[in-house]
């Protein structure tokens, strides 16, 4: 593992050696069939993830090469965006990608509807959801093309101190 750790710390992510080692441990624990990459089922073997309605979106964002599985490199790059050292732009992009399902750089009406549906399940009727979606797009769409671009998204969300909200702190133990 020693070599791999140093390989990854040079790869432009926000973690140091120690943190990568810990994440490697977590990765290995989740990789039940020891295939070297995590499938959706292996992610879903974590009970707390099963109760999270947006988990398929998060996995999709991790999987940058689109092969349906997340290898350790994608894992590190993905979790790195939540590091306390990550910059605001990275985090905004992450949040944007949750909505942008087809990765075309715009959040369309349909995409917003789908994500909202994931979050509410069957507790709201479709027409109620559609109302909310239409209203949101109307309010935030500045150039009038009927969808939300990354810039328009940032304008809304930037004021919300996103760099504090989308952060996971990796703890450091005492060094010997």
């Amino acid at each position: 593992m020693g070599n791999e750790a140093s390989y990854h710390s040079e790869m432009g992510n926000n973690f140091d050696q120690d943190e990568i080692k810990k994440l490697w441990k977590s990765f290995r624990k989740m990789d039940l069939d020891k295939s070297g990459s995590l499938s959706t089922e292996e992610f879903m073997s974590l009970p707390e993830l099963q109760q999270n309605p947006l988990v398929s979106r998060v996995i999709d964002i991790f999987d940058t090469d689109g092969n349906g599985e997340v290898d350790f490199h994608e894992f590190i790059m993905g979790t790195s965006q939540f590091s306390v050292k990550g910059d605001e732009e990275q985090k905004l992009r992450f949040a944007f990608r949750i909505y942008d399902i087809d990765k075309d750089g715009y959040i369309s009406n349909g995409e917003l509807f789908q994500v909202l549906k994931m979050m509410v399940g069957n507790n709201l009727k479709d027409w109620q959801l559609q109302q909310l979606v239409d209203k949101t797009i109307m309010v935030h769409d500045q150039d009038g093309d009927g969808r939300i671009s990354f810039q328009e998204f940032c304008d809304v969300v930037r004021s919300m101190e996103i760099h504090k909200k989308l952060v996971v702190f990796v703890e450091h133990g005492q060094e010997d």
Partner: protein
Amino acid sequence: MFLLLPFDSLIVNLLGISLTVLFTLLLVFIIVPAIFGVSFGIRKLYMKTLLKIFAWATLRMERGAKEKNHQLYKPYTNGIIAKDPTSLEEEIKEIRRSGSSKALDKTPEFELSDIFYFCRKGMETIMDDEVTKRFSAEELESWNLLSRTNYNFQYISLRLTILWGLGVLIRYCFLLPLRIALAFTGISLLVVGTTMVGYLPNGRCKEFLSKHVHLMCYRICVRALTAIITYHNRKNRPRNGGICVANHTSPIDVIILASDGYYAMVGQVHGGLMGVIQRAMVKACPHIWFERSEVKDRHLVAKRLTEHVQDKSKLPILIFPEGTCINNTSVMMFKKGSFEIGATVYPVAIKYDPQFGDAFWNSSKYGMVTYLLRMMTSWAIVCSVWYLPPMTREKDEDAVQFANRVKSAIARQGGLVDLLWDGGLKREKVKDTFKEEQQKLYSKMIVGNHEDRSRS
């Protein structure tokens, strides 16, 4: 040829004498005290000696590691990330509040930032989750000379390796046969004893004998595992007509508790050796054994338990409500069945000291026989048992709340983490209801505001 003969008989004689000596020692120092419930303190002395040796070994390793300049200890953490335990509502409200101030005049319904909460929770879980951690054995900070716990301690010096080799020799060639002999004695005495007591007519004599046969055999088994148990608050021990509830780490829990008190056991009827033991035990006193088919019928189980508990002359029932073995760092969800019966609950907390041997039974990794062999080739099983004051269900509490209250008390006493999760998650998936609950919570946040607006 003729020269060898006297030599042969000499060896045979020596063997015979040493065996006799061994068995006499066994009898005098182990079995007789077990029968009378007395202790010579040999096991405590053994424990102190072992601790000294471990301390020396660890010191040696630390020195060796410094020389080679590599890190020896993995820093102890309860997890690798610092989690922020806010709820869905709190966090989303906070995110919205920190947003644009122009939202003050209208109540927001859905905000693009609402996903932040779910994202963060998801990431925290992916990086380090609370639940599956509990299902594998705890990792030690110092080495206890057992190679099975040696994760990151490597070859340091010759002296240490010799010590370890000596340890292996002692454990496998001296302690193991001794323990197997004891276990054998204990179990056969139990079966024979209870069967014989079963022939007596019901009455005080039978009860007295049955109690002592049970206690004696459990004490022998305790010595067979070299279990060094410290009991706290023995005045709170369970009484007749009550239910004794404890956290579950391994099948040895039963032996540990039953060697200090006389309980009625509850369980499924097994085949093989276990079945023989169960059938014998039930002749001497009324234990509650269920057929495999009956176990599924919750009402039947509840009925039988209630009947037993209402008869004040019957013994306290011993139950492990977690339903499965957890690795002794936390207490998981208690199944509510035993808390619905309405009897007084006597909680008991059991905490093992992992330095001498890891008692956790990872049933997906080891079978029962392998597990017992591992137990018998460890140095010792050291644990603490706390008897907590009895609890009863209050008027406005339902069974689940009562179960959680008992669980918290046990977790607090034993220094374990109190978890809400179901121990059954070791094998099954989370029910969809958890996700649906999250969805419902979030919907309320959006819809609640929506309804207000449409009314005005």
